[in-house]
């Protein structure tokens, strides 16, 4: 059985050599991966689970998605579960150093720089992160209203950071995201999300003009 599969894979590597041929072969590749996956399913009794996992990981590392197990929020392949646990280990200290929160792009860069080889694809990273909470790991994935994705320590309470953000803005009268980011030592992206959250909670209001977006303490609510 594996000999059959390895011959098929040998032909697929030939496809990789020539990108234009690969485009043509793309449809064949999808069909191939589907048939392999189905054969794995059929042969479930003949192959050990360990071999199956190894093989699925192999497919994944080639960039071929496994169509048999669909990733849904909270569930995923063994590969993503392992990856999630790895991430928790790698990210604990960097998160603590960065005030408990990092954007997913920062995480992507950090993790791939550490790996050096066998780089993670963005999809793999996101899928692994979606499992963090379900696996009861000490970090979680959070998506803000704007769509920005971050990784937070479970112990991090963004809503509480909003209170300190309000103090900072009040001290200065008003702040833009850039000014706030500089003052607090955060990335502008995360600074903006914190200010937007403060606005959503009613602590800040905005002044959106040609000169940019400024946030002020929300006197509409505090001084009636």
């Amino acid at each position, binding site marked *: 059985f594996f000999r059959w599969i390895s011959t098929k894979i040998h032909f697929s590597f030939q496809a990789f050599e020539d990108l234009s041929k690969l485009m043509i072969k793309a449809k064949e590749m999808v069909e191939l991966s589907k048939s392999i996956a189905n054969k794995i399913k059929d042969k479930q009794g003949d192959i050990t689970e360990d071999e199956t996992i190894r093989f699925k990981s192999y497919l994944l590392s080639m960039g071929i998605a496994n169509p048999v197990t669909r990733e849904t929020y909270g569930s995923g392949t063994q590969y993503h579960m392992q990856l999630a646990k790895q991430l928790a280990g790698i990210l604990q200290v960097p998160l603590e150093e960065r005030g408990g929160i990092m954007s997913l792009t920062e995480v992507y860069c950090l993790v791939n720089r550490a790996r050096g080889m066998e780089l993670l694809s963005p999809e793999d990273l996101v899928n692994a992160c979606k499992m963090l909470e379900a696996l009861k790991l000490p970090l979680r994935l959070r998506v803000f209203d704007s769509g920005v994705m971050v990784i937070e320590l479970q112990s991090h309470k963004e809503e509480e950071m909003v209170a300190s953000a309000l103090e900072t803005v009040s001290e200065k009268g008003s702040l833009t995201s850039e000014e706030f980011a500089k003052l607090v030592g955060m990335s502008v992206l995360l600074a903006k999300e914190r200010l937007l959250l403060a*606005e*959503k909670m*009613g602590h800040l209001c*905005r*002044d*959106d*003009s040609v000169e940019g977006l400024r946030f002020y303490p929300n006197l*509409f*609510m505090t001084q009636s």
Partner: protein
Amino acid sequence: MAMSFEWPLQPNVDTRQKQLAAWCSLVLSFCRLHKQSSMTVMEAQESPLFNNVKLQRKLPVESIQIVLEELRKKGNLEWLDKSKSSFLIMWRRPEEWGKLIYQWVSRSGQNNSVFTLYELTNGEDTEDEEFHGLDEATLLRALQALQQEHKAEIITVSDGRGVKFF
């Protein structure tokens, strides 16, 4: 959010309600202070109400429309023409004026009396009353409100209009 950068309305709903209320209150205070009972939208745009020369900031006309619409919903504003270019602004709603006038009429035992509109707003007897000096347009609407409640009837007198109270 599809909001142009000119749109100064607050995205947080609660804040926006307070913001609108603050603008409405400002408009009514301004008009009361300057004894302005009617305005055109163009006048409004250039007036200190919506044009802060010191800050070099102006409220864009779309936002002015929103504030005016809010005032209309609250009963403090009435459009004077179909094209919504000029409006009547009443810092007290007609019903509230009506109530004040009727209270004075009852207090002074003048039910079943007839007054000209002029007497009501400019007569000696009403000098101490809040509605003294009220503009005719607002006065008429106040009396119309009373008319609805069968507390008054607007009639024609020798040289204009008058009102009978019940």
